[in-house]
């Protein structure tokens, strides 16, 4: 009796999950693919506009990736391998750019270095930020926190024993770097490069704001779809943007499976070295300053009369934005972010439970599907949703935006949950069986309480990203469901830079509050 009932519940859930995945990912992507059948792909791909955009996308993304990973490497080395103080504060400062939309970075740079830019005016410079250099700077700022966190994680878990052995053998610093550091870092470093590259090349916020005439693929896709309603061309560009993301995803899967070894590693002991520490202070201080400067600048501009003519302090932009329905859009965003967090967390727990705690053929397929959403850029997912759901009842509702955000941000939190569940003792469910405790109770009373921290982390990830995303939602939002982040593009289009800045500040504030709550909740739990 007991056994039969349990099996049916579990198989119902499986069927529901399978149907959900088919409708939420597989069918929309197929729809987008099939859309390309009516399009003259060759004509689009060989057109000069496309070729230029592709070339420019590749160029600026490659350079930005190298700079971003380079600086991130230096920062993570400073935090992991030197004796500087305030490491926690530096880490927070380096991560703040993660909490605002990419488009806000572009805006901050324009205010500083645009044609009327504050720095240009103050110092009498004549820097032209629009185009390649602007996209480069903005992309570096936007991707740096993610690259930094990934690299810090890698350095933290590097084993120090080979270095000690090298010391005993009397190897030089250069030898150590080439024989130990590089081989250890090679694989994870490739992952970091591709993940950063994917993030940059699929982003349209920075180039849209600051790209000027330097056209890139995501901007071209955005303009073709939003401006000219050319879905066919959008699909072709979307497929091209899928390529680097797919490579990044594959590399990640390959590296992850091998990297899961449970070796006992010895942490690094930082030796005393004042010169090195002074250098690290300078690097960290300088980068933190440069990252925060544009954010501080647009925060300031959010409260001026009229940039750049009248820089006197005022609150009137708040009033202006409220007249433009700011509060409605903000509540839209908070509602969407909250529901996405709840739905996303439940879905991630459910999926990870099947993939990590009930191994079967089904769970392997489910696992693959769950990670593939990592490889689908927001713009591509958004476009495929427009095509697939256009005629359905869900189109134009909050549910549409909630669904697209849940799927867009699903992979990372899912992997957190998968790893947490995977680390818990594999026999717990069997213990339950021998003691006569149902699986559901083991999940509720043992597995979930032991995963509390991960659940909170997942919640915060879904929330923060849903608050600031402008990619997938830009194709799907209506006047009634529009999230607040999209007001930035709207205000910017209306030349209301102060209000656009204000919206960025509000998003940053909401996300900071959420991150703060998460931080204190976790600290209380640890006690």
């Amino acid at each position, binding site marked *: 009796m007991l056994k039969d009932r349990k099996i049916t519940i579990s198989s119902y859930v499986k069927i529901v999950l399978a149907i959900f995945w088919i409708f939420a990912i597989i069918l929309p992507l197929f729809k987008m693919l099939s859309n390309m059948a009516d399009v003259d792909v060759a004509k689009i791909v060989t057109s000069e506009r496309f070729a230029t955009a592709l070339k420019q996308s590749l160029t600026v993304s490659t350079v930005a990736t190298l700079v971003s990973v380079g600086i991130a490497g230096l920062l993570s080395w400073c935090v992991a391998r030197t004796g500087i103080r305030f490491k926690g504060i530096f880490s927070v400062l380096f991560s703040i750019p993660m909490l605002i939309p990419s488009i806000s970075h572009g805006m901050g740079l324009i205010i500083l270095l645009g044609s009327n830019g504050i720095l240009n005016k103050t110092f009498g410079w004549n820097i032209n930020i629009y185009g390649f250099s602007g996209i480069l700077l903005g992309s570096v700022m936007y991707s740096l926190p993610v690259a930094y966190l990934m690299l810090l994680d890698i350095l933290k878990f590097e084993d120090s024993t080979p270095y000690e052995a090298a010391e005993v053998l009397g190897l030089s610093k250069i030898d150590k770097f080439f024989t130990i550091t590089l081989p250890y870092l090679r694989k994870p470093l490739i992952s970091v490069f591709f993940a950063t590259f994917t993030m940059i090349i699929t982003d349209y916020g920075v180039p849209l704001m600051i790209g000027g005439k330097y056209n890139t693929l995501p901007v071209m896709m955005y303009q073709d779809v939003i401006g000219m309603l050319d879905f066919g061309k959008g699909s072709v560009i979307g497929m091209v943007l899928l390529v680097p993301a797919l490579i990044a995803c594959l590399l990640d899967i390959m590296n992850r499976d091998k990297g899961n070894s449970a070796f006992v590693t010895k942490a690094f002991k930082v030796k005393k070295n004042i010169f090195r520490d002074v250098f690290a202070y300078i690097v960290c201080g300088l980068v933190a300053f440069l990252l925060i400067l544009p954010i501080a600048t647009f925060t300031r501009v959010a409260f001026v009369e009229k940039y750049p003519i009248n820089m006197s302090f005022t609150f009137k932009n708040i009033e202006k934005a409220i007249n433009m329905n700011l509060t409605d859009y903000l509540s839209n965003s908070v509602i969407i972010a909250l529901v996405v967090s709840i739905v996303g967390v439940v879905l991630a727990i459910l999926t990870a439970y099947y993939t990590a705690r009930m191994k079967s053929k089904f769970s392997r397929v489910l696992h693959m599907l769950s990670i593939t959403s990592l490889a689908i850029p927001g713009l591509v997912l958004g476009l495929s949703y427009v095509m697939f759901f256009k005629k359905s009842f869900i189109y134009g509702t909050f549910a549409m935006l909630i669904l697209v955000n849940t799927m867009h941000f699903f992979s990372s939190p899912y992997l957190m949950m998968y790893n947490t569940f995977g680390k818990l003792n594999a*026999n*717990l469910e069997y213990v339950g069986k021998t003691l006569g405790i149902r699986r559901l109770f083991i999940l509720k009373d043992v597995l979930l309480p032991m995963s509390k921290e991960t659940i909170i982390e997942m919640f915060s990830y879904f929330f923060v990203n849903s608050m600031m995303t402008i990619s997938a939602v830009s194709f799907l939002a209506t006047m009634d469901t529009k999230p607040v982040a999209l007001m930035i593009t709207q205000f910017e289009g209306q030349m209301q830079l102060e209000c656009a800045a204000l919206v960025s500040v509000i998003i940053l504030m909401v996300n900071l509050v959420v991150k703060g709550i998460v931080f204190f909740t976790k600290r209380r739990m640890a006690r």
Partner: protein
Amino acid sequence: MSDKLVVKNLKKTFGKREVLKDINFTVKEGEFLSILGPSGCGKTTILRILMGLETQTAGEIHKDGEEISKLVPAARKMGFVFQNYALFENMTVLGNVEYALKKRKELKKDAREIAEKMLDIVGLSEHKNRKPHKLSGGQQQRVAIARTLALNPDIILFDEPMSALDVDTRMTLRAELKELQKKFGTTMIYITHDQEEAFAMSDRIMVMNEGIIHQIDTPKNIIDNPADEYVERFVIKNIKMKIDSLIQFVDTDKE
């Protein structure tokens, strides 16, 4: 002593691989039976089939004269102690022992009392409000044993419960386990790959290799009359070597 457990023609295949080839044995009421064999010989599979965590390909299991192999694990009135403890890390020691009791209607009322009594028996009363990860490996395994004993099973199955413990702890726990068995009269089936352990604890030993039982007998009979070359070569030789080296050691010590 009457037959507590009768296993008849037990077979298990995983895909094409035959893990258990026609296993037959009997366990008597209150007996301590060890299953001794190298890793991969099928001993854990037998235990998991007895408990109902795995289904046999063919064969029957009778407990107190009743066929039980169609029953769900919890209905078999057996307990299972896992190699890696598998405690509920988020609960206290007391919570671990109490949890299953609270989930049963008939035991719910006395859950706290039973759990405290069990912890007293395994000597962990003073640690009852601590979390498992604050305890030593031996103490954690005692919690797991108390958790199993609390439901008062007819038979307790042990899956290499001491393989992760150091020698000292193992020696003490061995003695304690024998004490418990005397006290409760529970039938115990104990898996190990350690000859010393098997010979020190068991009423009878079942020597296994590659899915076949080579011999089931008392430790003394196995040493005196090994059933075949395998038992001779891999069990007895080993035990004798250990004894010899101990004697040598004692001798050199005297000189």
